């Protein structure tokens, strides 16, 4: 799998991934003398960076964090590279001072601790050679503040019975937005929908498979939906109701990304 990324600090790092699902502070979060992770909330307590590629959503805490990254890097105890969802100045400055390659604009939840990984900041990408990417479009139709959820039938290939947005696989080289329009037509019978936004890709991992979901938001002129064989029921919900539904993995993140746009 290849994920596009934005270069923050130049360079390339190769190795295994170390992933925290929560924001991280290098002050208090790691021991300066050993490079051992201390922050319990990361789920990595007791691990050492040891040159691995460290992925976490974003930095937090004191700006002294920049100096802490520098100190770890100087002693060879820090990560070999850094991947963030969204870079902020503390970690970005630290990576530059420490000479560590760094990228952001990557959904770090698509990476698992232990994955083989190549971080190529200069090429602007992150590569997971052992992970197979399955690109998918996921479309939220919106009408007067409500968005459409559909429940997947027993006849589809995956996640039967779960709630989802209108979705479909992308075939090689296909334009995601065109595929999105087509899926809407097939699954709902609606033709006159209006493109509103495409969000940043959300990566949902399922073992060594990664569903790379391209989120879309379209406005629908009406609410009458004609389902095809792929779905068995539908519901127009307010976006804050999504937690009440048993959905396909990470559908809430896909919705947030679609609503936010690029």
């Amino acid at each position, binding site marked *: 799998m290849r994920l596009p990324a934005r270069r*923050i*600090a130049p360079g390339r790092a190769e190795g295994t991934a170390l992933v925290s699902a929560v924001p991280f502070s290098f*002050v208090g979060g790691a021991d*300066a003398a050993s490079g051992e992770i201390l922050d319990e909330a990361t789920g990595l307590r007791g691990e050492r960076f040891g040159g691995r590629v460290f992925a976490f959503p974003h930095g937090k805490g*004191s*700006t*002294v964090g*920049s*100096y*802490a990254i*520098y*100190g770890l890097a*100087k002693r060879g105890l820090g990560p070999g590279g850094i991947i963030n969802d969204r*870079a*902020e*100045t*503390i970690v*970005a*400055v*630290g990576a*530059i*001072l420490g000479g560590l390659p760094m990228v*952001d604009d990557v959904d770090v939840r698509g990476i698992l601790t232990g994955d083989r990984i190549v971080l190529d900041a200069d090429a602007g990408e992150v590569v997971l050679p052992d992970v197979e990417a399955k690109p998918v479009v996921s479309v939220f139709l919106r009408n007067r503040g409500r968005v459409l959820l559909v429940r997947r039938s027993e006849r589809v290939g995956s996640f039967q019975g779960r709630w989802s947005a209108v979705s479909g696989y992308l075939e090689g080289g296909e334009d995601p937005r065109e595929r999105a329009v087509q899926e809407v037509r097939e699954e709902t019978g609606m033709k006159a929908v209006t493109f509103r936004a495409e969000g940043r890709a959300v990566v949902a991992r399922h073992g060594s498979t990664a569903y790379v979901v391209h989120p879309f938001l379209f406005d629908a002129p009406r609410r009458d939906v004609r389902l095809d064989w792929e779905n068995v029921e539908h519901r127009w919900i307010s976006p804050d109701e999504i937690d009440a539904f048993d959905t396909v993995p990470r559908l809430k993140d896909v919705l947030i990304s679609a609503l936010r746009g690029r």
Partner: protein
Amino acid sequence: MRILVAIGDMSRAPRLVPITSAHVSGASYKMVGDPGLEFLEDFALEARVAVPTTVNPLGTDLRQWRELGVPPDFAEKQERIARAYETMGVRPVYSCTPYLLGARPGMGEHIAWSESNAVCFANSVLGARTNREGGPSALAAAIVGATPDYGLHRDEGRQPTLVFDVGARIRDFGFSLLGLFAGKEAGDGLPYFRGFRATEEDLKWLGAALASSGSCGMFHLERGTPEWRSAKTKGLRTVRVAEGDLEDVRREYTTGDRPDLIGLGSPQLSADELRGIARLVDRTPPRIPVWVFVSRIVRDACPEAVATIERHGGRVLADTCLEVTLLEHRFGTVATPSGKGAYYLPSLCKQKVVLDDIRALLERYA
């Protein structure tokens, strides 16, 4: 330069803009620790500042540390941090109130300051332009002489995001309470205040508290700050502030009841404020020590006030400040009128806090 370009890219800044001064936080050994000491010493081997640069308070007064019971190792490392900064060419005055030290940036001047209260004062009261820099980015800007042009450097970044309609009567200590209240409401927004008048000193306390409980880099005061006329308030959410709201804030931040120190600073006091405190202490001597935090310049300018406070068992400490100094080795509860102090003392100094007006505190602990 690479730091500034990376920050500029992340913030979608179209260019770097030249600056006339820098102010760098991250000088207290208590705050930056060994990682900061190591970096600053390495950096000082080559780096030199390109514009007039001031630095935040240290972790102790290096001329009085023995009397304060500061461990020698701490003082030695603190001394090395100061030396590293001075090697880089900064002005050797360690203050969180660079705007009181003579060289004040003017209206529209671009600067790169860290230290949240100084940022708030420079933007709001002086009309200068700076983002809320972190220590490392302000240092990078000092060396390059420029900073990324985004946020508060641009007209559109200086527009208010919410209005505070203040019905309460605000005097002296009330500005700290109002700042704490408004910062919590405003978050990372930009407040527009109306309903009171204020001196420059009042605005200093308001901004310091505002920039602590919120991450505000600027505010407007109707008929009070230089850019209020260009602020567009139409359609903004309005928050009304009554006396009771401020009393709630005072109670919320009061976490102790038996202080063993009265701490006055955060930010450092001006010469006028120091003289005023000396008069109050002389009139109502407290039975617990009073520590007053000022810049070296102010301490040297007010020998009589210093002597008065010391005669009553207090201290006037220079080049350091209330929340970045070493208190936790001696004290457990600090009484202070500073909103910023009340906000940071529990986390940075492991102190309980009694937040109240200085006159009330002196009378209560006389």
